[in-house]
């Protein structure tokens, strides 16, 4: 039997929500299995049944305190179809896009500066007391201030387009309920150039990290996989708000392409496993064993043919050139995420100069339908909302595939790869070693359950299990 070992972990935090990692050791202390468990049952699909379709885009925001806008927009897109609208008025679509770019920008900024920067700047094995944002700010106060200002900029865009920072009501079935007043537009225009400079600086930081640690990055949670995202219809450009589904295999060959996302269920199957509440989706054509795939910023950089904003496109080209094809490195997500920040700010600037944002044609109407499927690219990856509604406007069916669910298998593989690399056969497993596992999870910016955080809850727990199945150590941090 393996010896019981003392393991010190503090903190094991900086992920969104509540999760658990178990690391199973064999008799020689080698990592036999490592799994990321989702320990909270969300149950939202049942909760939403019986609700009126009009209130769904508002209610679903309660799924998540971090990316409520993603759920707001995905559900609104589904409800567009139910009210018979396939093409929104330009003002409505552009307002929704502005909202979405604001949200992706602020989410990525928060993740990069506040959750990941301590690991990247100080090292994964640095003392835990050093590895936090406060130390980052102490050493580089400008970075900290910029992070807060950039996030604030994104939040204010959300507020201006959705009506409120949380529980916004902007997107409604068939359109939007407001336009952007000129004075608000001008306020954002006065800030956007500075945001673009800061976004490029952040990109340089993320790119520089990956390039200067190329060997480590290449060996850290890197494994071939398929990648999936929306891309723009026709030319395959990056499109975070709307498009068609594209999935590429590990070599870059299409598995499916330009698929109408309303047919997602023809291409994706959702598997379940006994040890996790989270589903394991896979691509039907490849089967359950080989059909898993990754989504998110890096997946989007892999699937997109190009980016339709110049600075982000140049950065996309640089990532591609560095990678020599698809990039499969878990840590390259940080580089990809900052490319998207630049892209979002460029799109925000482009939209702010578009007079359609001041238009008054806000809502379209069509012939009533009874089923709708909305898909967007949320900060963490592809997000699917699928509803059926009866003649009384009540929801009768709801299926959600959130980004973290798409990435479930990928994250588990990353956890195992890093655990094997850094924990196997070690005479003493330290907090720094365990942090390597968390770094791998964090790179996917997972949102494990969302927004229950009452005093006393635990966000992430790590358990070490010996060959006999006994838990020999566990650690976590209460909030």
């Amino acid at each position: 039997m393996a010896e019981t070992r003392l393991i010190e972990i503090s903190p094991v935090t900086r992920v969104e929500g509540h999760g658990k990692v178990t690391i199973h050791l064999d008799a020689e202390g080698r990592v036999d299995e490592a799994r990321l468990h989702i320990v909270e049952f969300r149950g939202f699909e049942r909760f939403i049944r019986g609700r009126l379709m009009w209130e769904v885009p508002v209610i679903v925001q309660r799924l998540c305190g971090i990316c409520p806008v993603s759920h707001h927009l995905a559900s609104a897109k589904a409800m567009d179809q139910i009210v018979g609208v396939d093409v929104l008025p330009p003002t409505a679509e552009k307002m929704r896009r502005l909202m979405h770019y604001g949200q992706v920008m602020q989410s990525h900024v928060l993740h990069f500066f506040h959750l990941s920067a301590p690991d990247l700047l100080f090292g994964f094995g640095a003392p835990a007391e050093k590895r936090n944002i406060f130390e980052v700010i102490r050493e580089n106060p400008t970075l900290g201030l910029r992070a807060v200002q950039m996030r604030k900029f994104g939040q204010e865009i959300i507020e201006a387009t959705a009506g409120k920072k949380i529980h916004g009501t902007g997107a409604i079935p068939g359109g939007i309920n407001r336009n952007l007043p000129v004075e608000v537009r001008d306020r954002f225009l006065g800030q956007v150039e500075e945001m673009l400079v800061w976004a490029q600086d952040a990109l340089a930081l993320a790119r520089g990290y990956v390039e200067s640690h190329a060997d480590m990055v290449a060996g850290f949670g890197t494994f071939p996989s398929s990648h999936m995202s929306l891309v723009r219809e026709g030319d395959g450009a990056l499109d975070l708000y709307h498009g068609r589904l594209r999935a590429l295999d590990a070599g870059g060959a299409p598995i499916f392409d330009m698929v109408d996302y309303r047919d997602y269920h023809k291409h994706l199957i959702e598997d379940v496993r006994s040890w996790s509440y989270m589903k394991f989706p896979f691509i039907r054509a490849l089967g359950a064993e080989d059909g898993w795939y990754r989504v998110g910023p890096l997946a989007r950089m892999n699937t997109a043919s190009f980016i339709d904003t110049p600075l982000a496109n140049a950065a996309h080209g640089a990532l591609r050139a560095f990678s020599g094809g698809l990039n499969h490195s878990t840590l390259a997500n940080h580089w990809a995420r900052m490319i998207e920040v630049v892209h979002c700010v460029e799109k925000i600037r482009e939209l702010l100069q578009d007079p359609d944002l001041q238009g008054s044609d806000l809502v379209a109407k069509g012939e009533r339908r009874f089923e709708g499927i909305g898909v967007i690219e949320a900060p963490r990856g592809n997000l699917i909302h699928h509803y059926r509604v009866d003649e009384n406007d009540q929801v009768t069916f709801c299926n959600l595939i959130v980004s973290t669910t798409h990435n479930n298998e990928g994250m588990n593989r990353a956890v195992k790869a890093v655990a094997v690399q850094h924990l196997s056969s070690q005479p003493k497993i330290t907090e720094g070693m365990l942090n390597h596992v968390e770094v791998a999870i964090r790179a996917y910016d997972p949102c494990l359950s969302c927004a229950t955080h009452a005093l006393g809850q635990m966000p992430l727990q790590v358990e070490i299990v010996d060959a006999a199945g006994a838990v020999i150590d566990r650690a976590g941090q209460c909030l």
Partner: protein
Amino acid sequence: MPVTRLLLIGYGNPGRGDDGLGPALAERMSGRNLPGLTVEIDYQLTVDHAALIATHDAVVFADAAMELGMPYRLTQVEGTPQALGSHQVTPEAALHLAWLLYGRSVPGWVLAIGGEAFGEVQEGLSAVALSNLHLAEQFLAGWIRQAVRAA
């Protein structure tokens, strides 16, 4: 405590039962229109709360609490924060960020309100939470009047 600008941040998820106690309290306090009081409602504390905190003289963080053993408890925030996330920005961390980023040392209190039904996806507060909310509201209204009057 000389206070002219008091900030109340009520946070939690109203879609998770008693986790919505913080926002519920904040909404009630907002309806009282107390002079000098700014009310903010959010799902959770985030880094950008530091900027808001830095523009006030004091802050009260209202949050739901599990197994509190009493209807509510007001505690002054003390100590150095150990970590920071986005779901896990603690009151200590928010105050510390306000100091680090803006050079403002703002005193803070946590008003923990006891709940018993967390985690399930449901709206509305349990009977116990509602009762605790009422008591916490009465207490905080008096506390704020006294605090602001002291200025």
